[in-house]
């Protein structure tokens, strides 16, 4: 029999605010038993005076996303939350500079909120935001662990406009918690809490091209300043951020195209989805025949593509010592029927209906990457995460109820 510590609770609504100290070996939460004195009409089985919170109610699936592109506002985040349904919005009525996004099912937390040093502090100590010394991993671990166990937390807010740490905001445990930022997989305790992790790996040439697009209109910026900024951050990036990719369950690698010789505009992209084998509740996407090696150019007699066309590759590989499957797309979609055609030939994409990937891509046609592998793979990863969530929650509901042996 599992013994839980007694806590007083203020309200029992959707999430039980009690943590259970013991976990099963697969990390599922045991049923949580609540004893209270006053009887309430809300309780169905009021005779015995016991409320049981089923584990399904307070189950939180935690996803980690490592990206160097700002927080909770990136295109990837928007696609992810869109797949789960609903639009993610900043918390209503709170700090307008909050980085958090909340939708019906998902809460996205920006890991910059766990900076231990604000902008002035970092300047004094001579550390960049990329440096682990600027971040409070103990707090990050405690709060992610609490949210995962169904306990709400008061999370600090890092204000990117003022560069200061603002008073905390209350975060309630959601069904799906996404932690996005520079260091989701840096600390091994936090890493162990993640049910799935993604690393967005942008190559230097593409990063440069994107930052030019982002910054050239700004007064003060020039090609040189953009380049200098990337170069100056590179040592810390390579030392602290890049090594996280070996731990990721999925890596989305963005490279310049190989279809156009000497292309340096970064508009046509070659994107590789590197998927770890053997991850629980995650079956990698494949082309035609799982585990084989495929080279596929969909353009031909049935499908006409405009220059430079589309090229796919799929096959097994190893990545930092792990067995992986890699699905790669080079080129871009110019027409809807190209996208539908490609979707119909991919397997294990975890769609609920035919054309769901296409529909999601069209929904956000104005987002960057909607016509190439970045949008395609981000959307597919979103669907895989939905699938993972449903597998985890349904297997928990099926778990035998044993806590009432007392």
């Amino acid at each position, binding site marked *: 029999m599992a013994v839980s510590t007694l806590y007083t609770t203020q309200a029992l609504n959707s999430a039980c605010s009690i943590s259970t100290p013991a976990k099963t070996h697969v990390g599922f939460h045991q049923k949580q038993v609540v004893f209270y004195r006053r009887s309430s009409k809300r309780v169905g089985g009021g005779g015995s005076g016991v409320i049981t919170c089923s584990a399904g109610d307070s189950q939180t699936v935690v996803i980690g996303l490592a990206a160097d592109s700002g927080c909770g506002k990136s295109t990837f985040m928007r696609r992810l939350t869109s797949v789960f349904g609903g639009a993610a919005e900043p918390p209503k009525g709170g700090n307008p500079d909050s980085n958090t996004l909340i939708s019906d099912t998902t809460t996205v937390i920006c890991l910059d909120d766990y900076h231990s040093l604000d902008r002035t502090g970092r300047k004094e100590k001579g550390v960049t935001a990329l440096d682990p010394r600027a971040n409070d991993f103990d707090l990050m671990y405690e709060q992610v662990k609490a949210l995962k166990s169904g306990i709400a937390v008061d999370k600090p807010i890092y204000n990117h406009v003022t560069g200061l740490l603002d008073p905390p905001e209350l975060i309630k445990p959601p069904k799906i918690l996404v932690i996005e930022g520079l260091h989701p997989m840096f600390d091994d305790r936090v890493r162990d809490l993640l049910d799935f992790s993604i690393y967005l790996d942008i190559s230097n040439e593409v990063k440069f091209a994107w930052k030019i697009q982002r*910054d050239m209109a700004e007064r003060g910026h020039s090609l040189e300043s953009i380049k*200098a900024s990337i170069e100056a951050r590179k040592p810390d990036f390579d030392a602290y951020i890049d090594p996280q990719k070996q731990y990721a369950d999925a890596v989305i690698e963005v490279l310049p195209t190989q279809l156009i010789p000497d292309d340096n505009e970064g508009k046509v992209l070659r994107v590789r989805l590197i998927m770890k084998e053997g991850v629980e509740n995650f079956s990698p996407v494949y082309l035609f025949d799982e585990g084989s090696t495929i080279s596929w150019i969909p353009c031909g007699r049935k499908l006409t593509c405009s220059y430079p066309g589309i090229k796919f590759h799929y096959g097994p590989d190893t990545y930092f010592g792990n067995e992986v499957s890699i699905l790669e797309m080079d080129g871009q979609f110019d027409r809807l029927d190209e996208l539908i055609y490609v979707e119909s030939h991919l397997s294990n994409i975890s769609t609920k209906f035919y*054309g769901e990937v296409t529909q999601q891509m069209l929904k956000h046609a104005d987002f960057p990457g909607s016509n190439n592998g970045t949008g395609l793979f981000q959307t597919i990863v979103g669907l895989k995460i939905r699938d993972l969530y449903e597998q985890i929650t349904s297997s928990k509901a099926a778990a035998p109820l044993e806590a009432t042996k007392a």
Partner: protein
Amino acid sequence: MATLRLHSLTGAREEIPTPSFVSNPRMLSPSFHCNKKRVSRRMTVNAMGGGAKYKGTLMREKKLTEMIEKKVTEAKQVCEGDETSDECKVAWDEVEEVSQAKADLRLRLEVEKKDPLESFCQENPETEECKVYED
């Protein structure tokens, strides 16, 4: 609803309905990519179509723009001595931080067409920040 017939790689014939929302294939054209137009200046003039609505947002925009310029200058100065020094790294990291913050704001306003202060200002319409910007 139009349907497509496709031969999948396994050779089976499938009837695939095209979703009815598919009306504008142009939506996938590359010109939709954000980088084509330099629209950041347009925001400060046009409050109507997807620009800043509240004074607070305009103030933030302005502040971020000024900070970018100021911090680039600072970084260039600091790095003149030693490009590999910590001070130089931190200075450019600050430039990156404010550049990204500005870009996020721009994305919010242009693509999502939502003023970030919307929900705050509904609760607090009398504050200075929530004055509606008039052209």
